């Protein structure tokens, strides 16, 4: 009966979160087969450690944490150096002037995906957790075992970089015409 309950919980977790976890893994792995492998490993570890999960409300964040560790283990990732948020004021002003100058639209899905693929991994990691996962910067900081200020810098830089890449794409298209 205990095993039946464990099996039932596990099945519910898979059905509830496998899709969004796959999407997160896809962007981090940039390969759908590897993303699925990472997800398999994630749930394999989750099954073995399911007895440690006490709070159902923490299940989603717990799974994300396991998945991110699997991906980091696979790629042997090291953390990047971060700038403080205060030093980015000038960059904000510069980017706003660029987008205003070219009156460009940032709604091209394909270009956005290509741009998303190009931004640094740590930035993409934090941005996807915020956008896909809906987590706050504080929650992401807890999951990453870092400070919320660091996460805020990462998501800021991620959006900034995306807009820069898309703006560069638009301006090069405009020049070629």
């Amino acid at each position, binding site marked *: 009966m205990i095993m039946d309950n464990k099996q039932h919980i596990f099945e519910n977790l898979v059905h509830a979160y496998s899709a969004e976890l796959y999407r997160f893994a896809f962007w981090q792995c940039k390969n759908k087969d590897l993303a699925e492998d990472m997800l*398999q490993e994630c749930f394999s570890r989750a099954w073995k450690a399911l007895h440690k999960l006490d709070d159902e409300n923490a299940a989603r964040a717990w799974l994300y944490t396991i998945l991110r560790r699997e991906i980091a283990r696979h790629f042997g990732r090291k953390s990047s150096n971060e700038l403080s948020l205060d030093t980015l004021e000038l960059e904000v002003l510069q980017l706003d002037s660029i987008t205003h100058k070219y009156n460009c639209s940032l709604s091209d899905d394909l270009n*956005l995906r290509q741009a998303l693929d190009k931004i640094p991994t740590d930035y993409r990691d934090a941005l996807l957790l915020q956008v896909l996962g809906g987590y706050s910067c504080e929650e992401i900081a807890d999951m990453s075992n870092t400070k919320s200020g660091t996460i805020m810098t990462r998501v800021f830089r991620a959006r900034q970089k995306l807009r820069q890449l898309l703006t560069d794409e638009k301006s090069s298209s405009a020049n070629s015409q």
Partner: protein
Amino acid sequence: MNCIDVHRKLTTIPSTQDELILAHLEHCTACANFAKSMNDFDQTLHTAANVDVPDGLAERILLKQSFSQQHQQRATRFKLYAIAASLLIVATLSLNINNLNSILNSSLSLEDIAINHVSDERHHLNDRENIQLAKLNSVLQPFNIAFKDKIGRINYAGTCPIRNSRGVHIVLQKENETATLLVMPGEYVSNRTSRVKGDFKTVIIPTQNGSIAIVTSINSQADFEKNIENTLNQTIQYI
């Protein structure tokens, strides 16, 4: 709060509900437009990031988990069987170590068994208890044997397992030589036999309820065994 701070905040958290920022947006058109563009951008980002999920993904995850669990259960069962089998072997050996020895001994001749026994317990050859006749006969009494007279200085007398049953192990000293007598009830021999093996030699003489082995050193006097044999034949009693 100035427009730079607002832009920074909106770039970090486009959907912020910060009251100060919301208040700023109400009277700053530029920042309000920026907020809208950031929210639109995030909507697009969300759509772009939502790549298609492979068909059957959840089912494949559950299938792999099922096989993994089945494999683990098999491995656990195998380990339990292996542990149970090991315990059974240990228990069997522990309880039947004597039987094991008996099985091994049953393939040996009685002469070899007698010599091996004395060789294995040669420390008794150094005992110096000086056991009196009455005490010796009390050891022999369960085996329905007694000695009428003293047969020599008895340095040791005790019971021992000998092949399939128990016998009496006696170390006696006579004429400055030492001999071991093994009283072996149930070990019948039809005739007197003898054997030399290693450091020892033995003569086995038949008795009414089995046999007695006289084991001496190969260096002992030629007629020492014979003297002991004659003494035993004269003094042994069956009770």
